[in-house]
């Protein structure tokens, strides 16, 4: 039962990454692209978690944690750059 649910969840997350990639390419504004990138990072975290469950290994949780931190910082940095033309003033 878990393996079927896992397969479904991985398929859903993969399709979501492709959908956010479409929004990243289509745009039209820079805010849309930043949002699509943020969504892609969150979906990648979900994919790593599902991979951990499938492999029955907790090795990759550090990668998910790091990705969560770096994704947030990069989103804020992109927004700050769009907002002010500079990141660290």
């Amino acid at each position, binding site marked *: 039962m878990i393996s079927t649910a896992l397969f479904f969840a991985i398929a859903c997350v993969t399709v979501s990454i492709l959908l956010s990639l479409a929004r990243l390419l289509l745009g039209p*504004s820079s805010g849309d692209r930043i949002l699509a990138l943020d969504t892609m990072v969150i979906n990648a975290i979900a994919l790593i*978690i599902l991979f951990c469950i499938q492999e*029955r290994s907790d090795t990759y949780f550090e990668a998910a944690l790091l990705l969560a931190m770096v994704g947030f910082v990069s989103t804020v940095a992109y*927004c700050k750059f769009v907002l002010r033309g500079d990141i660290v003033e």
Partner: protein
Amino acid sequence: MNPLIEGIIAGLLVLGGSFTLIGSWGLVRLPSLMTRLHGPTKATTLGVGSCLVASMIFFPAAGLGFTAHELMITLFLFITAPISAHMIAKSHIHRQGHRLDPNPADGIREALPPTGGPTDWATYWQGGEGTPLVVSDADQPPREQSDGRG
């Protein structure tokens, strides 16, 4: 593994996958950025949260021991998702209000209204030397977009 626990984990995984898909579908389908913000920041965060809860139940149930990583990732994501959404919305209002890449579906035609206080919005403050910044509309006509920066 206990069939009940197995069912709970499977249900959470299906819920998480569905929410993630719905969030990204909203990102593609909705007409303007202000509506598009809803999908990723609510549905996708909830979907990832469900996957993390499923993993939190799965690892102790499979005899692999409990790790605090999922809890940390969940907390971090739930704290940072509103902040990043707020930053995106702020930069979007800023750009749309200054007629940079305008999208009519937004309904945003003007920048932020005057604060009414002694100081202007902090995003309009003049920064340090050498910093290319947007200045307030209050004392200057709207600038022409020249170099792609807002």
